[in-house]
């Protein structure tokens, strides 16, 4: 046995070491050289999950139930598999909106509701106090084991060492958890100390495990071989123990419960989310943390069985095997080290938990009440940061004392593990509102209220109340018979559901009520604008790249905002805040406009200090706000996405403009070409007319025959001129859409025949044979017959021009293609060279070279094509150089191309 002085001295010496580490961590943070900015220390700080419950309770559980200590650690393993998604999203949301506690997180998600924050805080405090009591109980029990039963039982509370431990821890939490109001509410010194504590408890546990396994026994197989020899122990490591079959439901429930707890316990939220330095660390911490859990659990079974073998079953409390085994073997220093390990598990949990809970109590209980009392409303007031810190300090002390009180009153009633599980089940009630809120936009405040209240009520009735009853505070008959003898309402067998153990039973009913109410009420009523906007901000937190929408409309005065920020952040930080904003906006601070973005910024910073709900109230008190409707929310969201869209649209528009400009340029160029071509074509006949006229003017005695010839040329050149001008006008009219069209029902067969007859003189002159290939009859076509005649004449005269003088042949065919009529004019002339085929329909692009080609304006084909286009048809050229050319066009019977009329029954069937 060890003297109390030694044990207490070691414990307080260890606390001093913690103070030193935390002080160093804070100093380094102040210098900007963070010690905790690495993934391994981050993962170690997550080890705060392992409390006295792990350290002492696991062995106890293993000694009585075999594998049942394990699900509590397998759950976190499964949760960590998803940490990179879930925890990172929580960190991103908390970081972006300055969220510093789980109550804040939930309240902020559902429209910054102060009442919801208070509710979450209430559940947390009620759920966590027994857990804190459990830790104090462990310290006390360990102390008694070390100092031996000879120590007189403590009767007077002022002689109880546990009280002083609690007070010392409160001092630590106050010193490093509330030293200053930090921008991000991070406590680097505290986290450094926690990481160190995690390392200490791991090393201590493994040291004892190794001592038992290889010091007291001959390895793990030796322990097991001896255990198997004892009949009452041999079945311990089987699922089906003795009579009862394995309770898979409870196993599953414990896995899920711990999976949720590792994310939702206030201390886990604190170290994982609030204290996260860099969200990239999550990637490594996610597998280092389960590895930590694995290592700390490896020796649980050897110590448990080693203790049972050493002392004999039922002789010694298994929960303190880790102390009593070394002690009984004379390894006093190892026992003391093991005690320090357990002490570190206790202190780590207590420090982080109380800091986390005190933040909630201060921000979500005390501050809203003070604000409601109007003490700090719109009235002028001084710097409130000191008051805030003092509230938190008081809250830390109060929470610890509450735990101590619970421990003194009810701590003896239950085993460690049972108390811990009650707390786990309490925080699991946050899961639907918190996780649902992160991934489901439809969750509303009413749903969150309903779920939390319903779940909490069922938890209290089915788990908390029976535990109180078992402590003997209310008649235990109530558990079995139900209230007023209503067995249907028996707390551990609700509605007669007796197949589940009490924990699974409570978890099932409470989560069922919770989820049903959350989903049901969320679906029943549509959310308010503020809820909807917060839902968007939370669910889509990864989608916004820098341009997040600010859901706020109203007016505020810059001076009010500055005064407000000064009171909650302190003058220095407030000044820094406005300086930074001014720098970003690019105007000096006095000229800043109190726009939505600045108001939002101030609100967020204040939220970091007093919580989102209180910050909302404070901003409301100094600004004239316009209530937002759902439409406003959508509009603001629209604007934000538009801003992002604008950049893209601008780029696209620039591209389009550039393309349009190019097109305009080329059109302009074409126009110039056209003008020069036209003037060129006009000049040639003009020149010859003028030359001949001048000749006749100069020579009055010109012979009559000569004069006659000249006059003939002049007349024909003038005709050519007017034809050209007419064609240019014609083309311009068609292109601009001003041409007149006199549509009628056209018989294309007759029209083609007439056109060939009209040009027969032309062909006869050149000794050209024309072959007609026409069907008996074709359907009537709706078109302008004069224009079509113009097209036919143009094609026929073109053919006449290019066929050879002797032996020229032209074939004209008309085909009924069902939905359209096709006309082709084929000649056996030289054909069109490949290079010119593409341009032959362009203006003034006459075939052949200028010297040998027959006369023409070069406008005939372009006009023809325009006409055919006008009637919805196409005109094209088929030609192989040297084998003649074939100009053809096709006109649809119904220009809009729609089939289904009954006037032409042969459209598709014939094809």
């Amino acid at each position, binding site marked *: 046995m060890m003297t109390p002085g030694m044990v207490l001295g070691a414990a307080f010496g260890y606390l001093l070491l913690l103070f030193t580490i935390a002080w160093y961590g804070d100093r380094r943070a102040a210098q900007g050289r963070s010690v905790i900015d690495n993934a391994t220390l981050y993962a170690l700080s997550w080890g705060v999950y392992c409390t006295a419950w792990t350290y002492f309770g696991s062995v106890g559980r293993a000694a009585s139930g075999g594998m049942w200590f394990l699900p509590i650690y*397998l759950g976190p393993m499964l949760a960590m598999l998803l940490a990179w998604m879930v925890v990172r999203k929580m960190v991103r949301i908390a970081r972006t909106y300055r969220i510093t506690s789980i109550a804040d997180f939930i309240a902020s998600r559902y429209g910054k509701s102060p009442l919801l924050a208070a509710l979450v805080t209430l559940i947390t405090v009620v759920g966590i106090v027994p857990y804190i009591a459990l830790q104090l109980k462990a310290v006390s029990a360990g102390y008694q084991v070390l100092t031996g039963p000879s120590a007189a039982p403590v009767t007077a509370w002022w002689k109880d060492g546990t009280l002083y431990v609690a007070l010392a821890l409160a001092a630590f939490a106050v010193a490093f958890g509330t030293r200053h109001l930090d921008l991000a509410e991070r406590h680097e010194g505290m986290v450094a100390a926690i990481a160190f504590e995690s390392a200490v408890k791991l090393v201590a546990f493994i040291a004892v495990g190794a001592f038992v396994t290889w010091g007291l026994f001959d390895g793990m197989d030796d322990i097991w071989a001896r255990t198997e020899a004892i009949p009452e122990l041999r079945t311990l490591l089987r699922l089906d123990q003795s009579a009862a079959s*394995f309770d898979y439901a409870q196993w599953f429930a414990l896995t899920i419960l711990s999976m949720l707890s590792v994310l939702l316990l206030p201390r886990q939220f604190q170290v994982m989310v609030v204290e996260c330095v860099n969200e990239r660390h999550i990637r490594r911490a996610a597998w280092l943390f389960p590895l930590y859990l694995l290592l700390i*659990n490896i020796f649980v079974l050897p110590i448990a069985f080693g203790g049972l073998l050493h002392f004999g079953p039922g002789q010694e409390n298994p929960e303190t095997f880790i102390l009593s085994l070394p002690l009984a073997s004379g390894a006093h220093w190892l026992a003391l080290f093991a005690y320090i390990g357990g002490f570190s598990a206790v202190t780590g949990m207590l420090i982080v938990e109380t800091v986390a809970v005190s933040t909630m109590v201060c921000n979500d209980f005390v501050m809203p009440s003070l604000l409601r009392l109007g003490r700090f409303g719109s009235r002028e007031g001084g710097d409130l940061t000191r008051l805030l810190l003092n509230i938190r300090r008081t809250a830390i002390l109060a929470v610890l004392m509450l735990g101590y009180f619970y421990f003194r009153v009810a701590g003896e009633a239950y085993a460690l593990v049972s108390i811990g599980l009650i707390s786990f089940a309490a925080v699991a009630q946050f899961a639907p509102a918190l996780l649902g809120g992160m991934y489901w936009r439809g969750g509303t405040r009413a749903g969150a209220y309903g779920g939390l209240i319903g779940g909490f009520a069922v938890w209290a009735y089915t788990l908390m109340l029976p535990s109180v009853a078992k402590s003997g505070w209310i008649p235990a008959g109530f558990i079995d018979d139900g209230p007023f003898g209503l067995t249907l309402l028996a707390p551990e067998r609700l509605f007669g559901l007796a197949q589940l153990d009490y924990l699974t039973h409570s978890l099932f009913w409470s989560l069922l009520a919770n989820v049903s109410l959350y989903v049901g009420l969320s679906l029943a009523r549509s959310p308010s604008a503020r809820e909807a906007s917060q839902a968007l901000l939370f669910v889509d937190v990864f989608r916004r790249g820098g341009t997040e929408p600010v859901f706020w409309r109203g007016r505020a005065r810059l001076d009010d905002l500055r005064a407000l920020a000064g009171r909650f952040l302190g003058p220095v930080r407030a000044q820094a805040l406005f300086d930074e904003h001014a720098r970003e906006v690019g105007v000096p601070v006095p000229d800043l406009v109190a726009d939505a973005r600045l108001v939002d910024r101030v609100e967020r910073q204040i939220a970091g200090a007093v919580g989102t709900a209180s910050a909302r109230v404070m901003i409301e008190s100094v600004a004239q706000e316009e209530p937002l409707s759902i439409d406003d929310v959508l509009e603001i969201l629209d604007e934000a996405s538009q801003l992002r869209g604008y950049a893209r649209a601008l780029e696209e528009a620039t591209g389009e403009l550039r393309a349009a400009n190019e097109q305009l340029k080329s059109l302009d160029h074409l126009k110039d070409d056209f003008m020069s071509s036209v003037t060129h074509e006009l000049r040639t006949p003009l020149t010859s007319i003028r030359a001949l006229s001048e000749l006749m003017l100069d020579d009055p005695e010109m012979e009559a025959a000569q004069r006659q010839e000249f006059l003939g040329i002049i007349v024909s050149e003038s005709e050519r001129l007017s034809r050209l001008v007419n064609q240019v006008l014609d083309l311009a009219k068609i292109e601009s859409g001003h041409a007149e069209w006199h549509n009628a029902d056209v018989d294309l067969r007759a029209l083609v025949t007439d056109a060939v007859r009209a040009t027969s003189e032309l062909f006869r002159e050149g000794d050209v044979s024309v072959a007609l290939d026409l069907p008996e009859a074709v359907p009537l076509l709706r078109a302008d017959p004069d224009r079509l005649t113009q097209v036919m004449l143009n094609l026929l005269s073109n053919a006449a021009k290019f066929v050879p003088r002797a032996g020229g042949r032209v074939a004209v065919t008309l085909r009924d293609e069902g939905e359209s009529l096709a006309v082709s004019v084929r000649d056996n002339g030289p054909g069109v060279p490949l290079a010119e085929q593409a341009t032959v329909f362009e203006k003034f692009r006459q075939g052949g070279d200028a010297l040998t080609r027959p006369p023409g304006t070069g406008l005939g084909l372009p006009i023809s094509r325009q006409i055919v286009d006008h009637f919805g048809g196409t005109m094209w050229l088929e030609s192989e150089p040297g084998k003649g050319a074939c100009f053809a066009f096709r006109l649809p019977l119904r220009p809009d191309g729609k089939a289904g009329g009954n006037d032409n029954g042969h459209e598709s069937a014939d094809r």
Partner: protein
Amino acid sequence: MRGERRPRPQVLVALCAAGLALLNFPLLAIWDQPATVFGLPLLPVALFTIWAGLILALALVSEGDAAERGAPGDGTDAPDGQEDDRP
């Protein structure tokens, strides 16, 4: 930004589902045999092995995979992440 895509969410969800299945009924019952491995009872050995396997898989998915697969477009992000993570 692209660096944050790793490890891929689908892989993580699949691992989590696998873990949930491996550590619960009925697969758990497979290990409930009176046999021993190196003199140790089968059930705890199996559970700890599955547990270690999941950790290993998560570590591989988070670290090794990220470094190797960081080729297209991730070049800038991957080295950063690695350096930051170093203790």
